[in-house]
């Protein structure tokens, strides 16, 4: 168990570094695809992003090398019976990912509903949904609070700042 916890960190870092490398490669390809419409004495529009993407690639390789060497070091430490220790990453709470995904889904539905319904109708619904996702129960968080905050936002943005909500 000890080894699996300690070993998870280098694996995670290896995956992160690999992701960074893919991102850098994509940035490099996109940058090299930039074509100047007019030739000039300037270095051109593609040079700066290409250099940046190349530097990102180098850093991603450094991250990858570090993660791989750390994995090897921890394997040796495990074999020697020493505790390598795991890096501190704040643990995800039970139900945490579901809350984030549901909140995102609520926003997507809200965005679609805004085209069809008035701001003053769909915003209380979104707020009630978000409050429920956060654990709110009862008439205060699910009814009074959404209506009150929507009224405040409409007054501030729609009425005072004249934003077309």
């Amino acid at each position, binding site marked *: 168990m000890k080894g699996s916890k300690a070993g998870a960190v280098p694996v995670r870092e290896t995956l992160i570094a690999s992701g960074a490398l893919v991102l850098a490669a994509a940035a490099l390809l996109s940058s090299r695809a930039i074509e100047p419409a007019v030739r000039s004495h300037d270095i051109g529009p593609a040079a700066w992003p290409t250099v940046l993407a190349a530097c990102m690639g180098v850093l991603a390789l450094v991250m990858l090398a570090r993660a791989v060497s750390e994995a090897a070091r921890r394997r040796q430490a495990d074999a020697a019976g020493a505790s390598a220790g795991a890096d501190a990453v704040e643990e995800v*709470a039970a139900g945490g990912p579901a809350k984030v995904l549901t909140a995102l889904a609520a926003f997507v539905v809200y965005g679609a509903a805004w085209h069809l319904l008035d701001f003053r109708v769909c915003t209380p619904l979104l707020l009630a949904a978000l409050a429920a996702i956060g654990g709110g129960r009862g008439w205060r968080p699910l009814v009074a609070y959404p209506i009150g905050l929507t009224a405040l936002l409409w007054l501030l943005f729609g009425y005072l700042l004249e934003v077309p909500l």
Partner: protein
Amino acid sequence: MNAVLDGLGALTEPGVIGGLVLGTVLGMLVGTFPGISVTMAVALASGFTLTLEPVQGLAVLLPIYVAASFGDRVPAILINTPGTPASIASTFDGFPLARQGKAGLALTVSAVGSLVGGLAGIILFIVAANPLASVALQFGPAEMFALVVFGLTMMVTVAEGQLVKGLFAGLAGLLLGVVGLDPITGDPRLTFGVELLTSGLPFIAVIIGLFGIAEVFEQMLTHRKGESTVITQMGRWTPTREERRRIRKPIAIGSGVGVVVGVMPAAGGDIAGLVSWTQARRSSRRPEEFGKGSLEGLAAADTANNAQVGGALITSFALGLPGDSVSAVLLGSMIIWGLTPGPTLFRDHPDLITTVSGILLLATALAFLLSLLRLRGVVRLLDLPRHYLWSTILICCAVGTYSINNNPGDVLVMLIAGLVGLAMRRYGFPAGPLVLGLLLGPLAEANLRRTLVIGGPGEIFTNPIAAALLVLSVLALAWPLLRRRTRASRAAGRTPEGSLPSPNPPEGPPS
């Protein structure tokens, strides 16, 4: 003289006064609520202020920044949770003092320290900002390019332990700054045929996503019920003569450390507080009390936290280099208002230094007075359920972002930036360098290309100021690595005298 009078005259406008009061109250609340960072609050408020006159907008945003540094001490002392990262060091002694029944005294002492520190930072801003800008006015493209590189490396090096990831995030920010039309040739770059991207990424939407949405999502992901207990026994509020005498020295140390750390690009209040706390302990006659409820430790940390604000604004306004992520957001708003932060700012708007100094002074005074109010309601507010906080922040992020251009596409960019910000937090990439890169990228590229056209690549390395700044940048990058190696070689068999305490675990108040 006219510029000074004009600057002071701007402070008498009702819109400016109203904005200042509103910003200060908002800043106090923002600081008091753990979970709302100052960067998030300033980014959110930017959405509200973009339609205002620049001075009115500054009168809202600057006081939020100043007052949040006063408000963030309250939860640090009462629930052992920093209101913002800048008040981490306040928990070391603030919460132990509160558990000893001295919460009122701790709040008063930290408010006094915050006032003195804030004033020290503002005095430095008044004295140094204009001369620094005058020197920087002599800079050509080569020096400006090197200065931007220096600013970027400083941002990365303060994210110790995340050097490579910080650099990667900074480069990603620079790359995102490329999105849009090329400033010289007009060619579309990294737009992928998306019309929304031809005018570049909407800066405010990106920062609201990175700091607002990502923060709420992170809390949703990791929050557990019943994690804190509020101290309700406040005890006495007024320090004795002996206590007043004891806090003079740490307040002086905090003021000095705070302004110096603040001037360093990208070093924020958290670093200022930690360095000041350590220095105050070293020079104290009672170092053993530090971490267990020392008024000296608390005073040193809070003084430095506030003193850095003035220092950070010097580099932001005079050089266009953000002192921290809050300043980066502030600079983004200024650009949208039509002000160009940097050496030309005070030349083009000579009255602005007086107006900004006046806003800072008034906000500091108002925040201090609010800090002295013994509002028991604030203590109750700390128990506000998270679902109210989360949903309010999320809807304000969405509506605030939409209101900037009345464009739903900006809200989409904000949500994507929020997810990117969440991924960055979970995978250890600091968001600050990305924002700095996004802001400074166009400046760096434009100056580099001008330099290359004027004198070729040699121009950067033969220009003494540019070369010196680039050498400093390399040293700034190498320094954390060298220091880590030195520490590792000394670590064996050494007592951790200089180490910092971990924040005390939240416990119930003494019965």
